[in-house]
């Protein structure tokens, strides 16, 4: 059981407070939505959860039972889908996944790669010889989902995961996130999509300052 704890968390940039005094406890097996208007700090909250940044005040910690996960151990347990995440533009989808997943000790054989591409709705024959720099934004988003799924991560941090996807893609996100939560993963997603918000088990609303 993994828990992410936000204790009196305040974040500010250049003297501007984005949000303050956030208290929350997120647990494995649930989907938590982070909602709020643009600029309210949804993406920032996800980065704090991943410890890619530290809060201006308060504390964010990730626990597995009574043991705190930090640094390399925490990093190896999480995966993210965010608009800022980019693939290597001069590598193919297969090369990108082989490299990134390889760094986590995961190898994808041909059958597993084909199944993964089918699962996220990418046609293997169309992308086999194409660099990801030539992908459409929707295809890149699906590839991000493929990396997330194949990583086997226990913590999913998703920032507008349905963005740039067609109706089928948004359905895929909802289905996979629910399945992940049912399998005991912790899912935190930043969203302004009503369906994604409704699919969550809990929500953190950022009012904005």
């Amino acid at each position: 059981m993994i828990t992410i704890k936000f204790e009196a968390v305040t974040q500010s940039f250049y003297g501007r407070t984005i949000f303050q005094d956030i208290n929350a406890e997120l647990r494995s097996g649930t989907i938590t939505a982070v909602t709020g208007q643009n600029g309210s700090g949804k993406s920032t909250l996800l980065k704090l959860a991943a410890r890619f940044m530290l809060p201006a005040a308060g504390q964010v910690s990730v626990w597995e039972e009574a043991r705190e996960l930090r640094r390399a151990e925490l990093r190896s347990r999480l995966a993210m889908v965010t608009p800022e995440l980019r693939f290597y533009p001069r590598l193919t989808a297969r090369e990108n996944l082989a490299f990134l997943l390889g760094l986590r000790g995961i190898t994808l054989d041909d059958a597993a790669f084909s199944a993964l591409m089918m699962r996220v709705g990418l046609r293997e024959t169309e992308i086999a010889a194409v660099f990801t720099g030539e992908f459409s934004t929707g295809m890149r988003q699906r590839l991000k989902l493929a990396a997330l799924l194949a990583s086997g991560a226990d913590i999913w941090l998703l920032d507008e995961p349905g963005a740039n996807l067609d109706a089928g893609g948004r359905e895929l996100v909802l289905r996979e996130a629910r399945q992940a939560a049912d399998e005991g993963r912790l899912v935190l997603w930043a969203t302004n999509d009503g369906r994604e918000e409704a699919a969550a088990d809990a929500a953190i609303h950022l009012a904005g300052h």
Partner: protein
Amino acid sequence: MQQSIWQGIKLVFIKELTAGLRFKAAWAAMFMFALTTLACVSMALQGGVVEPRLLAALLWVCLFFAAMAGADRVFADEDTAGTLLTLRIFGPSQAVLLGKMLYTLFLLVLLAMFITPLFLLLMDVTVAAPLVLWGTMLLGCTGIAAAGTLIAALTTGASVHSGLFSILMLPVILPVFLPAISLTAGAFGSGGITGSYLGGMALYDLILLVGASILFDYLWYED
């Protein structure tokens, strides 16, 4: 699932090499800079008798500044392409650092192998101690790769990245640069090759490597 550090280093090195071969801007910048400097030096000194120590300094100036044109790109390119976050999510710190360092060393050794024979030919230099010359080259390139990779990581994201990189590199690399010039001059026949300089360079390289390895964790993980 845990990945062995060697496998991680290999993956990072192969990724860098593949990306480098498909987009040769960094390679072209380094090699063209070295070639241009060498051509200028060669034409300016045409026919003149130059002391071995000055020749050695000129060779290292060519190498050092050419290296500056490419060594700072290992992290800057990731930052520009937006892949740094991806690498931070998936890549363990030590595999990333050492893989990129190894790739930079590979590039610098290629550069040295390209520029040194041309320099010897154009400047009509006879090498009295080739093993010392190549040993010095290897240790010098290792020092530049170790310091360059760490400082490239430190300066990534800075608005004046290139300027900052060069300013920070100079004091860090001087303890490699000075004995390298002295040893190269010795190899060119000025006499007095001091073996302890080679040992000193190797020791400083080791310190740079260990220091970079320790410091990089603090860069890679926020807390």
